[in-house]
């Protein structure tokens, strides 16, 4: 009974590609980064596949293991990253396109670095005393 339209082309990927083009120009001019939430855009069954095909695969791929695995992938266009956040059960929570030199979440965060510095100092102290 379900009459889906998996074969249809709706052309909803095009405006997103244009948005990315403008975001890249902003990044180069002022260093300003942009994030696009893929869950907030109208997309039909073919549109997302079309968008991902148009973006292609790039040189970098990383996994962040924090509250479930997140994949971070640079597309064939340098500075255009695809982020997929999953929970511990592996369900997709959100998908973003980030236009940046390095995605924010790949960078170590100051709070975590401070914690680590203290932890390392403690460990060395214990080693010397013990």
């Amino acid at each position: 009974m379900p009459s889906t339209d998996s074969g249809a082309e709706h052309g909803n990927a095009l405006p997103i590609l244009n948005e990315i083009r403008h975001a890249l120009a902003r990044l180069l001019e002022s260093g300003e980064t942009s994030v696009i939430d893929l869950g907030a855009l109208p997309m039909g069954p073919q549109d997302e596949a079309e968008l991902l095909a148009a973006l292609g695969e790039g040189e970098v791929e990383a996994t962040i293991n924090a509250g479930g695995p997140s994949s971070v992938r640079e597309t064939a266009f340098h500075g255009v990253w695809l982020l997929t956040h999953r929970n511990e059960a592996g369900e997709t929570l959100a998908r973003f396109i980030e236009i940046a030199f390095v995605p924010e979440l790949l960078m170590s965060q100051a709070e975590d670095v401070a914690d680590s510095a203290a932890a390392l100092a403690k460990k060395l102290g214990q080693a010397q005393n013990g």
Partner: protein
Amino acid sequence: MAHDAPTIAETLRRQGISRRGFLKFCATTASLMALPPSMVPAIAAALEKARRPSVIWLSFQECTGCTESLTRSHTPSIEGLILEQISLDYHHTLQAASGEAAEAAREAAMRENHGKYLLVVDGSIPLGNAGYSTIAGISNLDMLKETAAGAAAVIAVGSCAAYGGLPAALPNPTGAVPVSAIIKDKPVMNVPGCPPIPVVITGVLAHFLTFAALPELDDRGRPKVFYGESIHDRCYRRPFYDQGKFAETFDDEGARKGWCLFKLGCKGPVTYNACATTKWNQGVSFPIQSGHGCIGCSEPGFWDMGPLYKPLSMPIAPVQMMVGAAAAGGAIAGTAMAMRNRAAKKAAQAAHQKVTVDDLEKAK
């Protein structure tokens, strides 16, 4: 006791979640709340201070579909959001306690968190005869008034709580009314839908959890982030509507090509909801993507809106005009109003149509 509780950021930190993990949580929460990614720093700052709110959930004249919807929400999981981050102190379907023990839990939560707890309601409230719907011998009306008195805000979940829904469909045998018809002195947010999208329910709860306030509402009391645009405005088939390419039947060439479903009765142009982007079943699809028009389930009075398969531009049942006329003369004395209501009921009966396979055929 509540002020000693750790903030949400502290709780996550104690669970060994790094700042990076926290920022990921904030990014997914922003997406869940339908807020732009640029809001992530504001969400992070708010979650630094936010504490677990107490939530009391009351179910009146309803089918439990809204609670079913809530328990199917995946982002974050029901366990994560409801059980860890909010304190669901009373929900007679989900809680283990029943009868007097359950009512005692409700009263304790009301006492301890007076003025601060969030009240969520699904189902409409019968004004006809209190006996139509009671919980532990307490009428829905009394329970709503009593529980709303100490609430910080009230969320009416589902078309029944928001607009009266199915129980209020003509001829409204129980005299069902929405929450907003009774509670006038508190912020009431409507989250309509039959049922609302699971992640929209958790999204508004997450908003309250994060900002300790309701999101911005439209003139019907709906959160603008989820109900600000029509299905039609966000529909991926819209390019075909604009080109005048319509499916004429459910199995013709146009249907197979994914053309617009307007002529098959799609109510997308007059329906405000997040289905077209948020979608259902973990973002898999929504009715239009499965080849069926929107039936307008999140609009006021949708049960009486006329046949599902009749295109919007065709005149719909005359009862709408009758009800409109009665509403326009708001100051009419009670008897005149009652007569008009009776006339409206008659018109509703006369206009009532069963949808048959033939109707689907005739829709072209």
